[in-house]
């Protein structure tokens, strides 16, 4: 397995969160390179690199950047998504606590390209201790004169999973409840108080300095044709060495789990993997055998790469209990705006509680399939469709376990 450290390059260096140490190791050098390019050149390089958004969706970043107006009488903004609430995901946290200056450098490059003068970093409320490290880095950058052209402000969330959805994030920043907005018919930027705004994940923005410094081709050296580059993949659950380890797209999943993760805990057998945060369809051990970690391979087996945060489950895991746990999460976190989602997550959670309590019937399992259908494709955002995918994947792949506990 090839070692590749693009975003995690400075993670192991002591005190790399300080400007002094970060600068010794090359922080802010891409800004010199940036001066050789026009804003449109920078966007072109990002497009050529085919950098894909690392917050879960995997949409090409360059195409989003292109939607931002180069000429406008309204101010443009950048909103960096550090809401990171997808269970199994803890990678952005590593960046803001171990190499916050990499993020600030990426913010400066991005703002230059989209002609924004102010960037906000929306940090989830639960990350106060890491947010403080990022704030220190921002203060250092102000003192060093790095933020003369562009302001950076942290906006703290307060415990709402849905605010990781880009339009809900902006609603939240506008001082409202985090309710996702209706999607426009045509491609357009996001809007913050009616001003054009780009929303990108922390890791996406933190990849930009490498690409500007070394060129699009250098980034495409890693990964596959359609999923170029690297990602901060992560492991948690029943694995010997849980943690975040950067790897290139196209890496074999099992090799990754065995090499970095040291295999399944206590020498047990693998039963299932949730590949990229709980909103991705669950995979059986057999499905993982020849699987590679890239957007296309995961889509090919009707799951998704998501945030790259894998949850490993050993042979003794009770899948009914696992699904109940997941539905509890969704029930709690549904923003309540759309009826199919608000009611569907609640009903599914209650039915699973009944099944887990050994009071379930075969009809209850069928009802869960019906609910999955009700939640799919009928809501404003992708929250409910994800719940639907997860429900169906558990129910079909581990059907025997559900049927064993119902009468």
């Amino acid at each position: 397995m090839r070692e590749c450290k693009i975003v995690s390059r400075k993670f192991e260096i002591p005190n790399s969160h300080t400007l002094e140490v970060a600068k010794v190791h090359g922080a802010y050098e891409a800004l010199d390179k940036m001066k050789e390019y026009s804003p449109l050149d920078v966007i072109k390089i990002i497009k050529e690199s085919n950098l894909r958004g690392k917050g879960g969706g995997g949409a090409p970043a360059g195409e989003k950047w292109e939607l931002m107006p180069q000429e406008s009488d309204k101010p443009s903004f950048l909103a960096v998504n550090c809401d990171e609430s997808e269970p199994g995901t803890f990678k952005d946290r590593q960046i803001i606590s171990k190499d916050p200056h990499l993020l600030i450098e990426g913010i400066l490059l991005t703002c230059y390209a989209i002609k924004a003068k102010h960037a906000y970093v929306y940090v989830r409320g639960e990350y106060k201790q890491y947010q403080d490290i990022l704030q220190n880095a921002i203060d250092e950058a102000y003192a060093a004169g790095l933020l003369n052209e562009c302001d950076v402000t942290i906006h703290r969330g307060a415990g709402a999973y849905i605010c990781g959805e880009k339009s809900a994030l902006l609603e939240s920043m506008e001082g409202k409840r985090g309710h996702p907005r209706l999607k426009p018919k045509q491609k357009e930027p996001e809007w913050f108080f009616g001003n054009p705004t780009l929303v990108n994940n922390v890791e996406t923005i933190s990849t930009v300095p490498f690409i500007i410094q070394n060129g699009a081709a250098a980034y495409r050296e890693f990964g596959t044709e359609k999923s170029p580059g690297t990602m901060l993949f992560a492991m948690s659950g029943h694995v010997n060495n849980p943690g975040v380890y950067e790897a290139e797209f196209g890496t074999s999943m099992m090799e990754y789990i065995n090499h970095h993760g040291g295999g399944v805990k206590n020498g047990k057998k693998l039963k299932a993997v949730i590949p990229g945060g709980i909103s991705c369809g669950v995979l059986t051990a057999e499905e993982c055998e020849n699987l590679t970690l890239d957007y296309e391979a995961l889509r090919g087996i009707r799951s998704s790469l998501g945030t790259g945060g894998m949850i490993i489950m050993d042979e003794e895991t009770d899948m009914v209990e696992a699904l109940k746990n997941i539905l509890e999460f969704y029930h709690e976190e549904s923003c309540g705006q759309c009826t199919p989602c608000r009611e569907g997550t609640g009903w599914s959670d209650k039915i699973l509680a009944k099944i887990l309590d050994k009071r379930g019937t075969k009809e209850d399992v069928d009802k869960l399939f019906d609910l999955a259908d009700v939640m799919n494709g009928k809501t404003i955002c992708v929250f409910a469709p994800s719940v639907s995918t997860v429900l169906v994947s558990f129910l079909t792949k581990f059907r025997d376990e559900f049927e064993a506990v119902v009468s």
Partner: protein
Amino acid sequence: MSFAFSDENLTKIQELKKRYPSPQALCLPCLWMAQYQDGFISLDAIDEIGVHTTLPPMEVYRVATFYAMLRLEAPTKLQVDVCKTLSCKLCGSDEILKHLQNKDVKINHVECLGSCSTAPVMQINDVNYENLTSEKVDAILKELL
């Protein structure tokens, strides 16, 4: 009981206003400030936040009730947020929750705290305590209580 922001917070509010296109954006920052100042967000604080953000108090209240981390009642005991989401559950959060039952704390079951590789985990006063065992919980609480 009326509410007034401290001078320090008033300065912060003035500084923040320069950083946003509209004072409405200060809704969450102000709610946080009120919670840190009093330990919770009172209805009087909500009225005051309405003045600073130009939002109707009812809208501020709607927002305050949406976010799980915002408290509308004064805390009486030390609040312990225990993650109960999947990775923590797979790694033994049930035992931690059980162990906490007999302690003089307010147990708050929360969703993923973003510490999945160091599960099980709990958060107290914005600090994460990771790789928990019953012994570790005892030692942490001994220090805090």
